[in-house]
């Protein structure tokens, strides 16, 4: 008898639990017909903050709507969290984002136009010969501990930390021009002058690097590079941070979260002259993977999330019943491509890196164009990116300010591909198998990194597309590290599907990929000993474009060179671009002053974002 009562009770409890779990209404998923459906939430253009002077203090004044103070925004970072909070030591993205919240640079990027916009500096002038940059700092602005921000801090940051080779040296490395570094000098407390040996266009943008408070960093620099590497690491106390950014570290809990609180001395004000930021706290949860991030967003622990293509349709249909809005940030900065190995040299053992039979195919432009024509980009966008993507034909990403818009897109054209192959003497037999003019069966390996499901899916579709031409493709996803080893050390690969993230603002960052002696010139990689051996005419032209592009200072002049480089790649097809995913971000609709932009993301104006009190649900 007691057993039965127990069983009945157990059953009731289980049933109650299951029913509670089912109460959430299921909403049917609607498949979107095209990308335009996600454009519904685009907003009026972002009002750029202006410089104003009040009582001798040069503030930055927000032009966006005046909001309420208080509240918290919870964002997330995927992975194991920051490795350091020192903006000069960041080697990973998470650390760079989190330290960037605290330390402003002289300039930032206008999130709409991509121009240089003032931050700690209020303006700049460039001398006519393009070699002298004069930076005007704000009067009367302060670090979070109340000390003034002056030219001393700027000179110290550039002279002692960056040019001194402290921390991560990539900024320094990129500014060595003809073996010389720029010279920094101050004139008074609010003017800093940089003199560079040659005109070098990417220089101005590199001034967005964080500025360090001299009174805090100076002792650390005195103690040497090794000490600096662990300075302001993740176990520093929050009160040790003296910052210039809108937020200041409040708490770091390893593997759980980073909490920032408002910096009371921030130099931006709203149009009522009240000090920003509006939010009291900014929290980054450290989540291990994408799935957990989605669960946390759905459980309302997160306020903002970047959605993968496969999730967008469901969120779109949930949007009108929920408290979040979706924003389309436009194409991603990442580019996905197929590359062919054009290497025709031998290794130090006298063996060819690439089989000479295959070399003939890959170095044949008709072959490369045939491969390009046979790729069905639209189908890939539809099936792999769930329609949330755009076919890509240029090495610059679609949101790049240097994108060459004259390069036309086209569809899969199997007949054009076959004609091109025929021109080069390729033949198909009765079974549709492709042979070259010497009678060799066209067969090669296609690699990508295993575990990246998107690239694996692309590989399968590329293989099918190429098989339409009669080629035999052995698709081999291999471990990421082994693949990198093949690409940059052993060069023994035929075709590869990879992705790179470039800057949408500065094509010069791609010089390692495109210049013939670049360290990532994958499609025709040369060892340092080989130098520029066996350079192809169009490779020479690419080198020239990148050299000229870096020296020119005017945007219009640079655009010409970088347009040309894109055209060369478009015509020569050493890399065949596939598609760019579109970024869709969901954010709770209680947050106001949201001005998403392709270049800046959704929280680029974090100091202006506030929580609206009106809770409208439609």
């Amino acid at each position: 008898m007691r057993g039965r009562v127990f069983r009945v009770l157990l059953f009731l409890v289980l049933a109650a639990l299951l029913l509670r779990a089912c109460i959430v209404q299921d909403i049917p998923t609607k498949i979107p017909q095209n990308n335009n459906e996600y454009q519904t939430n685009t907003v009026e253009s972002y009002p750029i903050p202006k410089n104003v002077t009040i009582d001798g203090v040069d503030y930055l004044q927000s032009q966006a709507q005046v909001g309420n103070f208080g509240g918290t925004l919870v964002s997330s970072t995927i992975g194991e969290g920051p490795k350091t909070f020192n903006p000069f030591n960041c080697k990973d993205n998470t650390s760079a984002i989190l330290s960037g919240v605290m330390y402003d640079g002289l300039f930032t990027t206008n999130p709409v136009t991509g121009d240089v916009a003032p931050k700690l500096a209020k303006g700049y002038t460039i001398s006519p010969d393009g070699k002298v940059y004069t930076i005007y700092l704000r009067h009367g602005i302060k670090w979070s501990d109340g000390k003034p921000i002056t030219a001393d801090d700027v000179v110290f940051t550039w002279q002692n930390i960056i040019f001194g080779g402290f921390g991560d040296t990539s900024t320094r490395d990129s500014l060595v021009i003809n073996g010389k570094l720029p010279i920094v000098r101050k004139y008074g407390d609010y003017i800093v002058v940089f003199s560079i040996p040659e005109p070098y266009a990417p220089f101005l943008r590199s001034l967005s690097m964080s500025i360090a408070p001299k009174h805090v960093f100076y002792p650390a620099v005195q103690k040497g590079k090794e000490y600096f590497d662990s300075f302001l690491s993740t176990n520093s106390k929050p009160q040790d941070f003296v910052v210039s950014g809108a937020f200041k570290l409040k708490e770091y809990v390893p593997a759980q979260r980073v909490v920032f609180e408002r910096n009371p001395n921030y130099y931006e004000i709203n149009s009522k002259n009240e000090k920003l930021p509006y939010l009291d706290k900014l929290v980054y949860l450290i989540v291990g993977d994408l799935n957990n991030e989605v669960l946390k967003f759905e459980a309302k622990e997160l306020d903002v999330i970047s959605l993968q293509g496969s999730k967008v349709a469901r969120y779109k249909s949930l949007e009108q019943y929920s408290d979040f809005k979706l924003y389309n940030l436009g194409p991603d900065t990442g580019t996905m491509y197929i590359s062919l190995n054009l290497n025709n040299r031998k290794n130090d053992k006298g063996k060819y890196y690439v089989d000479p039979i295959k070399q003939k195919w890959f170095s044949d432009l008709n072959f490369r164009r045939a491969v390009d024509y046979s790729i069905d980009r639209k189908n890939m966008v539809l099936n792999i990116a769930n329609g949330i993507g755009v076919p890509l034909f240029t090495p610059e990403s679609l949101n790049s300010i240097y994108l060459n818009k004259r390069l036309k897109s086209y569809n899969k054209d199997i007949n054009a591909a076959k004609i091109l192959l025929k021109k080069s003497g390729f033949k198909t037999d009765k079974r549709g198998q492709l042979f070259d003019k010497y009678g060799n069966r066209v067969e090669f390996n296609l690699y990508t990194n295993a575990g990246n499901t998107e690239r694996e899916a692309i590989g399968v579709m590329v293989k099918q597309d190429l098989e339409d031409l009669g080629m035999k493709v052995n698709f081999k996803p291999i471990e990421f590290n082994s693949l990198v080893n093949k690409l940059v050390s052993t060069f023994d690969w035929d075709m590869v599907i990879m992705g790179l993230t470039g800057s949408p603002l500065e094509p010069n960052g791609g010089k390692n990929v495109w210049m013939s002696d670049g360290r990532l010139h994958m499609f025709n990689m040369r060892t340092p000993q080989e130098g520029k051996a066996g350079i192809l005419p169009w490779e020479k032209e690419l080198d020239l474009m990148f050299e000229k592009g870096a020296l020119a200072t005017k945007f219009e002049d640079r655009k010409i060179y970088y347009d040309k480089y894109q055209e060369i790649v478009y015509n020569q097809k050493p890399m065949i671009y596939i598609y760019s995913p579109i970024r869709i971000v969901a954010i709770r609709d209680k947050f106001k002053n949201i001005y998403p932009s392709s270049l800046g993301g959704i929280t680029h104006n974090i100091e202006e974002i506030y929580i609206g009190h009106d809770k409208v649900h439609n």
Partner: protein
Amino acid sequence: MDTIKYIIKRILQTIPLLIIVSMISFFIIRLSPVDPLAELKLNPSVSPETVEKEKARLGLDKPIIIQYGKWALSFARGDLGITSTGEKVSQKLGERIPNTLLLTTIVILLTWLVGVPLGIIAAVRWKTNLDRILTVLTSIGMAIPSFFFAVLLLMFAVKTGWFPIGGLTSPNFADMSFGAKFWDITHHLILPVIVLFTISLAGLQRQMRANMLDVLDSDYVKFARAKGVSEGVVIYKHALRNALNPMITLLGFEFAGLLSGAALTEYVFQYPGLGRLILEAVLKSDINLVMASLMMGAIMLVIGNLIADILLIITDPRIRSKS
């Protein structure tokens, strides 16, 4: 005195064992094709000089034997080295160990406090309805894969909103009163504890039940009963003491699992323990961190076994007389 000698002998025996374990792990990690610098090499804005500098800093430019020698020497001195990003390994582990210990200790305490009595009851009430229900429940517990169960519970938490989605504390934890902090941690611990508890409880209960059944069937128990000793004394004085011996060995293994046993569940619940840290370290071939955690696992296992053996010496006169 004999016992102390025995303990010292056992400790000395573990030294060659640890050396072999460390060598095997070190060489397997280093000989795997994972290049710790791959990401750096593929970053267009990183210069070749930086890559070379990084290589020298991590000691990757030296032959593998020398790399091992350097590591072993500093390990023997008690220095665990630094991670590939320059943080101290000892401190990284120190951040996580308390969290993992909190979770595993609660689970072990709960399972032993519940599992052992349940095992005894099931054995004593052998083939009654209660025993059958327990058998069914424990079979279910053993059959569910832990990560699957964890994912199910997470879905449950999302749908109902009753529990937080993983982690150990809420974002506003620092501003809470002591009572609220205690509740916050408890609230976060409930789901991971349920997962680990269900799974280890099942095994433990089955084990205890089987031991007890064995003993209850033995001649001395029959004899005690025949003598007319009361049932309570038979079970708790004669049978239980003998049935507990295998459980003590098991306790040694449980000790070894204190730090590593919950890795999978920790990962699913995004629990800030060792599991996530070590998984990432392995994926990035962060050698010092991986080696430290492997060595820690090996040492914990050795210590666990040692403790079990010592406990056995204390509880079992037969072993005492032999050693």
